[in-house]
């Protein structure tokens, strides 16, 4: 009973944090939120095969009972995909920040928390000058 309660609470807390963060207006909290959501779903997928302690998934000579091996395979796939996706979102947000000069999700800078302090033109000029150094970028 206590293990189910623990897992369920963990999934719930992670989902709650994930939804809250992914509704924020700046890309960094959103990235964190999406990551939290994927952690929550990994735990959830792991739990769908029912929680069993000390039971082997495939084969053991002296096993009285087995745990379902399929959810573990599904979790593995989900982890790989969500890990790759998180990396993509991080790179994409960074690139968007460098391109637009703001980390607001809608691309409109919020004057109250604008990291550039309104000096956008100068910043973009400086960005363009250093662009090749920062990203190793080559255009076809």
């Amino acid at each position, binding site marked *: 009973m206590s293990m189910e309660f623990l897992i369920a609470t963990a999934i719930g807390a992670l989902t709650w944090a994930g939804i809250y963060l992914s509704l924020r207006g700046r890309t960094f909290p959103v990235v964190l939120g999406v990551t939290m959501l994927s952690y929550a779903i990994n735990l959830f997928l792991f739990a769908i095969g029912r929680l069993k302690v000390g039971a082997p998934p495939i084969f053991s000579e002296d096993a009285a009972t087995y745990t379902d091996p399929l959810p573990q395979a599904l979790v593995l796939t989900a982890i790989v995909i969500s890990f790759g996706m998180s990396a993509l979102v991080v790179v994409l947000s960074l690139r968007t920040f460098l391109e637009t000069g703001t980390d607001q999700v*809608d691309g409109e800078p919020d004057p109250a928390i604008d990291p550039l302090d309104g000096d956008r033109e100068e910043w973009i000029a400086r960005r363009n000058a250093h662009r090749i150094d920062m990203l190793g970028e080559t255009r076809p």
Partner: protein
Amino acid sequence: MSLSISDNLAASLIAAPIMLPSLAGTMALIFRRRRRMVAAGISIGSTALQVLIAVALLLRASQSDPTPYAMGDWPAPFGIVLVLDQLAAWMLLLTSVVGFAVATHAALTKLDRKGWNFHPIFQFQLLGINGAFLTGDLFNLFVFFEVLLIASYGLILHGQGARRLTSGVQYVVVNLTGSTLFLVGLGILYGVTGTLNMADMAARGAQLAQGDRGLFLAGGLVLIAVFALKAALLPLHLWLPRAYSSTAPAVAALFAIMTKVGAYSIIRTTPLIFGDVAEPILLPAALGTIILGFAGMLAARGLRDMAAFGLIGSTGTLLVAIALFDGDGLAAALYYLPHTTIAAAFLFLTVDLVVRWRGVEGDAIVPTPRFAGASLLAFLFLAGGVALAGLPPLSGFFGKLLILDAALASPQAAWIWGVILVTSLIAVVALARAGSTVFWKHDETPELPEDRDPPRLVQALPSLFLLALLVGLTVFAGPATRYTQGTAAQVLDTPLYLRSVLGTASPPSPTAQGDAP
């Protein structure tokens, strides 16, 4: 297994729409820097070959029951199966012709030169879409969704620029959340039924105890919500206009088929596995989507926005027909589906040519100086508008007529008729206003840039190809509707699907999955 080699090859043709793009994508990746023409040739050749394969599969599917293809020869439900039936073959053919037109268009307009990886990503996109249409396994469907989404992230950012990146981030985050929800639904369904094979899940879902049935339907509704997100159904449509109008129009033309992946998944899973659970939600949402889409066309300031909203509206029309969930409704939907996809892709390609040939003002709906090739574009835009709004003489008219006819049996017939007819009028007004402003009014003040490329008429060939397909769909409406009626009957014949995939109409071994530990 005493099959001859030719039998084996013929059976393996089912896997070809997945194998071929993955091979072509890898080959294009090798040639992408040094021999760009070779990469483009491989890509276009692969899409052309996919058209031939799809035709062969369509001919085969129209003569037989659903045919499973067991990957690695592991029988369903233990291994992953691909299932070829009439619905899958119809969607494969549609994907391959649109893919062929868009790949050719991208090569002719040199869109593929704006980044290194256009053709490889394009092929992986087709791989994901084809796989989603063929698979008979829900988790495998998730994996193919991810493949097509990952490729679409690459395509939507192709060419880059600040606006494209901002909308790209939104698109990626929305779809990541959608994928998470997909896994939630899958998790619930697996937890209840203990299987991921669609046919097996259908058989076991029907035998569930009363208590588990609610959980099962909840999982199903979560999945349908995810599919509705892909199909841009109200209120889950918000990601689409900005993403599609800020990416390259040729890419958006290919993406016209992505909303249909969502619609396809609803057609595939709902009658088979979940029954009529989603009916009361889908129909009002689809009607709202039509209104929103076509009203959005009227409000659009750019041609690309307009095409994007038109895509939303026409997908809504399609979902109305699907939401009827009877033979006539599905048959009408399956006739309207290729029409609306090709029409939207055609309009996006035409808009791309307008942006390129006009040289000023981008895609804004404003008068500009006279430009070369305007009369051809005006004709293409007129044809695209006629197709999208569903006017005669093109196939959209027949499609809408079939949908209205099928809706007569529904208790909501008055609503469906009213919404579809009034919104068609709104779409006509919006398209006429945009067309006359862009092509008939002239304003000589903006200077044409000196260095703009002269229009090359050959660039219009892929658009003309799509137009020819629409004409073909109109001329051969008889055989096409006969095929879609057969398809609808096959989709609704659940026992046939179970027999074909599992060999029996009941699950092979009842498990103790439902028992709590």
